[in-house]
């Protein structure tokens, strides 16, 4: 275990702020650089660091490559960011990797797409009460306006008390175990902190490539020296932030679950629909894993996360091979070799920090209520602001999105994508059918032609720098 420079690391990386349920993200575009720098210097002091737990409000900031360029980061330095970051999220190559076709095509995005105005900065505000968010927001926005900075988007969030996402499932249960952040001490093998924060050793015992500046560009000596190059480690204590705004079609999801679990007479059976939906997620609505409780929901285990797939459910009879959580973190079940699998999956983890947006279809988030409600909200009215941190975009986020979510040949499956979040158009060539099989005895049940439940509405890669690096950008 290493000591973290918690005063340097922005708070959101180390904490999910579950005690601050109200939040808004502001996407900004800089026009006047002078004024923007002044503004940044002012708010630089108010950025929440990871040292103390905020009680009332928190503010964090992240930048796109264009944003840092605009703020005058040198050409040299800009070149040292990772290739994936430089390429961004909306090129043709990325489209193919992530399955952003049709409705999810970057051309249709509300922000971050090729036809959208350049995003430079994301300011993220969190508060305990809604009233406080309103006042906080007002003050912050006034200052932004005063500095002549354009607000491109105000992305609202919602965080229901039961911590459910819009389909009605508890989210945010499974996170990588980080010894440095644990108060109780390690229960199992912790993941190296360098997988999520630059400047620390990763799972290979190496330092992930980090953006750097020349020694001459750091007269104030803000940054540590990179041993290999002798450059100054601008990225230390920072992290790459992935933001994908994902619209959720809740009605379509539950319609599909009910339609495909009808009894012989064509009647809906509520329990069966919930079960089918849970098979797609891999957890029950309460959060309990299908591995721990294969037959029915058992809320007493809702936060239990120490289960294994190969060991407890090798044939996928509880949690199907293709379920969202089994695909996105296969634990010990890759290649049927548990030890090797755990070794490998450790290298593909994400620190998820997203929040939902939009009003729930039914306040209870209960499937029966969802089905009963006559929902007239347009597509894209609600969904998940998927946000995660990682040190290596290629090996972590892009790998998961491409090789696990969007891979029709994931493991031993054929022509199946992530049933919950993948675009059924897959990699754009329409000869792939999108099915989902549920392992059963004597043979699997297979659902065909899954519709699109989740679509991409916008997105970009950001870099969330250390507190010192924010100050550096302001100078």
């Amino acid at each position: 275990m290493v000591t973290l420079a918690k005063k340097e690391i922005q708070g959101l990386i180390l904490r999910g702020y579950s005690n601050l349920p109200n939040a808004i993200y502001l996407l900004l575009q800089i026009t006047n650089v002078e004024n923007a720098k002044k503004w940044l210097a002012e708010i630089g002091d108010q950025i929440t660091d990871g040292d103390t737990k905020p009680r009332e409000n928190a503010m964090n900031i992240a930048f796109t490559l264009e944003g840092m360029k605009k703020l005058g980061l040198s050409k040299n330095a800009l070149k040292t960011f990772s290739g994936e970051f430089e390429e961004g999220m909306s090129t043709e190559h990325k489209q193919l990797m992530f399955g952003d076709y049709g409705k999810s095509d970057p051309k249709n995005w509300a922000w971050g797409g090729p036809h959208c105005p350049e995003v430079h900065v994301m300011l993220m505000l969190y508060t305990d009460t809604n009233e406080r968010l309103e006042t906080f927001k007002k003050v912050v926005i006034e200052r932004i306006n005063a500095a002549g900075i354009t607000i491109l988007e105000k992305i609202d969030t919602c965080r229901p008390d039961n911590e459910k996402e819009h389909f009605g499932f508890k989210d945010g249960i499974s996170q990588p175990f980080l010894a440095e952040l644990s108060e109780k001490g390690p229960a199992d093998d912790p993941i190296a902190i360098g997988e999520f924060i630059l400047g620390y050793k990763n799972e290979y015992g190496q330092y992930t490539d980090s953006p750097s500046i020349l020694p001459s560009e750091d007269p104030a000596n803000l940054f540590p020296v990179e041993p290999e190059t002798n450059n100054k480690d601008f990225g230390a204590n920072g992290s790459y932030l992935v933001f994908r705004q994902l619209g959720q079609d809740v009605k379509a999801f539950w319609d599909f679950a009910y339609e495909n679990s009808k009894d012989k007479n064509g009647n809906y059976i509520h329990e069966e629909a919930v079960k089918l939906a849970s098979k797609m997620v891999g957890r029950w609505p309460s959060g309990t894993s299908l591995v721990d409780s294969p037959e029915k929901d058992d809320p007493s285990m809702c936060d239990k996360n120490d289960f294994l797939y190969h060991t407890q459910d090798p044939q996928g009879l509880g949690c199907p091979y293709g379920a969202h959580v089994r695909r996105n973190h296969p634990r010990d079940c890759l290649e049927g070799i548990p030890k090797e699998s755990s070794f490998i999956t450790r290298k593909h983890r994400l620190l998820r920090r997203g929040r939902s947006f939009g009003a729930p279809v039914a306040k209870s988030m209960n499937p029966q209520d969802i089905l009963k409600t006559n929902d007239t909200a347009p597509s894209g009215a609600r969904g998940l602001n998927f946000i995660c941190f990682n040190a290596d975009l290629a090996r972590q986020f892009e790998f998961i999105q491409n090789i696990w979510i969007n891979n029709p040949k994931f493991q031993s499956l054929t022509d199946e994508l992530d049933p919950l979040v993948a675009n059924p158009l897959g990699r754009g060539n329409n000869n792939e059918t999108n099915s989902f099989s549920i392992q059963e005895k004597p043979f699997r049940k297979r659902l065909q032609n899954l519709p699109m439940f989740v679509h991409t509405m916008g997105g970009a890669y950001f870099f969330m720098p250390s507190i010192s690096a924010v100050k550096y950008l302001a100078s």
Partner: protein
Amino acid sequence: MMNVQDGLTLLFDTREDKLQDLIQLLNKLSENIEANDLMPFGKMKKIHFARWVMMDATHDVDGNPIPAHLLFESDYDGDEAEHINEMLDVGLPGFIKIFRTCKGFPEKENVTREEVLVFINSHNAPKTGLFIGAWGRSVEQIKQEKELYYAVEDYLDANREALITKSPLEIRNKVREYVWSKDEFAWSKVPPGKRSFKQNFQYYGYLAFLVCCAIILLPFLLIMVITALIMLRRREMKEPATDHHLDKSKVSLLQKHEKFNLQNQFSAVGNIKPGTFRLRFLKKTLWMINRVSRYVFNKGKLATIPSIHFARWVFLDDHKRLIFISNYDGTSDQYLTDFVNKQPAPMSAIFCHMMDFPKTKWLVLEGARDMKGFVAWARKKQIPSQVWYSAYKDITVKNIIANTNVRMGLYGSISDKKAQQWLNLL
């Protein structure tokens, strides 16, 4: 008789004055790889994978120039002469056009097929290490078994209600009845070719021979390997550390060539370290891999990497350079991380003899375990393929093996338990 697969590598020197012609030609092939009128790969039934690669002129370790090359490689079924003949049957005009851009090809109006054949044979690079993911399966078998697999899946879906109440064995028998009633699956009534007596004799006889040799020569071998390792270690210690710098713009260029995402190709070429020691060591290692690979790596895994269809090492330019050629499932990013995550030791044992490879310790330690260094090295050595053909772009090695297993479940009388295991494959 079981089908045999092998790899063909042809190496030509290109003519500088015809470079543009060549680039245009290859682009044209690439645009319609299956059915162009010059070299329609889709009509060559024996080819699994093939590629044309242009290699720039460069220098060897001593600074002597190495001319620009054009490389052709194919992974094919059966006999090499038959394979070349089949290619000429449908692709003769294309070969002639391409060869006109190469040195040493007859410069006259009408070139005969015989002359083309002679030209090919005289540029055939010697075979070295070969790895095959799905042993013994011909292109035809792979394609047929894929259709069979889909038919079985669809049958289960369509008859779910009627089948679900039956025992696993009854279900399996129903499936078999259905499949065998179809003309298009008549071939599946006969199991795939097993090794013939002669092949078996060769397979096991050779294994016995290897084991005997190993036992008899054990003391000698041990001394040799230990001496060689000590000699190697002395060289390793003297070598400088390699740099970790990843050429990002090259990576993004290479990734633009990865259009399919389900399968891709990889070629990497580089100089072998100077001196005869490294070369001899490498030759021995590849020789051993070639001998033992069909016994050890016959489960479709190149050392637990279950995603490689074919992989090959070939010496070029009078053993000054080595090229590694492979066809695999997934993206190159995933492929390279797989090497580091799953099998760094064998990778080090082979590639440590090439220039710039991350420093190894005792042949297999460190080296490819150095994630950053390995990826930076591999990207540096990687070269794009101008033309790449796959006979079955939508099937992974795992699919191929699983599909065969589905077919094998149709034969003979099996227990209920075995039938259940078979159904678990679907």
